[in-house]
């Protein structure tokens, strides 16, 4: 069944999965694991839970492979499923935490988190980089889940407003308003950081951050 999407290599990979081509699903898992785990991590703030969500997304698409019809970029489709799972899981968790008397706050993943960017060229740079990362992560985690999902899809996954609207089942204008509110909240939460340009940080960190620009 050919359509406009069948020339897309990502979509072709999924079509191979649909046809049970040996190694196709393994290839898909390898290719999208990092994307899905990091998307979910930014959404839920916990690596273990993020891996559970990524696994659920991949298993779901494997289960549904026979009914797959290419209708969007594969990446967008996977992120749509991941967004819904993350938002539903959050809803379930807030309900569960509300009704369960013994459910305390979830333990932080603490040491279990591994930062990809942990190549400490200088301990001081590494420390400041880590602190900055933590502040950014905390600000993102403090957003309401739907605002977080919208920012996650826009800033980190590079989806367009239209793609975000489709992924979240919203109108275009509602998506823009959601993003605007999310960014306002982030600007408020990170106000002090926004006021500091790299030059105003310590010379070592300033240099390091400037190189990234």
């Amino acid at each position, binding site marked *: 069944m050919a359509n406009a999407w069948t020339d897309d290599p990502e979509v072709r990979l999924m079509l191979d999965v649909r046809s049970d081509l040996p190694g196709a*699903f*393994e290839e898909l*898992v*390898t290719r999208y*694991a*990092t994307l899905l*785990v*990091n998307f979910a*991590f*930014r959404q839920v703030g916990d*690596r273990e839970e*993020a*891996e559970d969500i*990524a*696994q659920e997304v*991949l*298993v*779901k698409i*494997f*289960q*549904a492979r*026979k*009914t797959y019809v290419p209708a969007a970029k594969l990446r967008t489709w996977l992120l749509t499923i991941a967004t819904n799972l993350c938002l539903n899981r959050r809803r379930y968790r807030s309900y569960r935490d509300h009704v369960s008397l013994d459910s305390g706050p979830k333990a932080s993943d603490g040491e279990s*988190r*591994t*930062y*990809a*960017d942990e190549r400490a060229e200088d301990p001081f740079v590494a420390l400041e*980089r880590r602190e*900055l*990362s*933590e502040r*950014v*992560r905390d600000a*993102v985690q403090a957003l309401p889940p739907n605002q977080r999902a919208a*920012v996650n899809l*826009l*800033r*980190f996954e590079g989806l*367009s*407003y239209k793609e975000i609207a489709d992924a979240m089942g919203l*109108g*275009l*204008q509602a998506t*823009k*308003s959601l*993003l*605007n509110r999310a*960014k*306002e909240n*982030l*600007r408020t939460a*990170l106000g002090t*950081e*926004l006021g500091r*340009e790299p030059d105003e940080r310590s010379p070592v960190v300033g240099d390091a951050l400037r190189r*990234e*620009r």
Partner: protein
Amino acid sequence: MDREDRLSLPEEVMALVDGEVDEGEARRLRARIAAEPSLGDAERSLRALDRLLGHHPEVVVSAGFAERVLKAARAAPPERPLVHRGFRFARWPLAAAAAAVVVWVALPFLVPRGEAVPAEIPLRDYGVLAAVPESAEGAASLDAAVREIEAVDEIFLRLS
């Protein structure tokens, strides 16, 4: 830009920063930003936020992740057709009452005139009467459903 897409000014600046406006619109906005310092500040702040978000930590996927996924996928049953799972106890009273009313209205047309309506009307065959509630809330809803069916049942018997 149609009415649906019309943005407020902060949203327009945000759309410019996010590369979501066409070239003509971008030119218009840049001119406006150049003329209004507060808009310039907003644009700089949004660009700074964008850079700052780039410092969000990333995680490395754990070593056994792919194997775990493959194992789980092979163990998972094939997807079944989506079943309607929203039909819970809370909706039973309404649905059961509606079904009873339909039967009540339709039965006179189905039973030949002049014949006595059987004393034992199979209204009690509704699944709701045999359902086993899973919770106190479910039991209350189920009781209500049963009472409604019995009430309709009684009216029907009286009329017949």
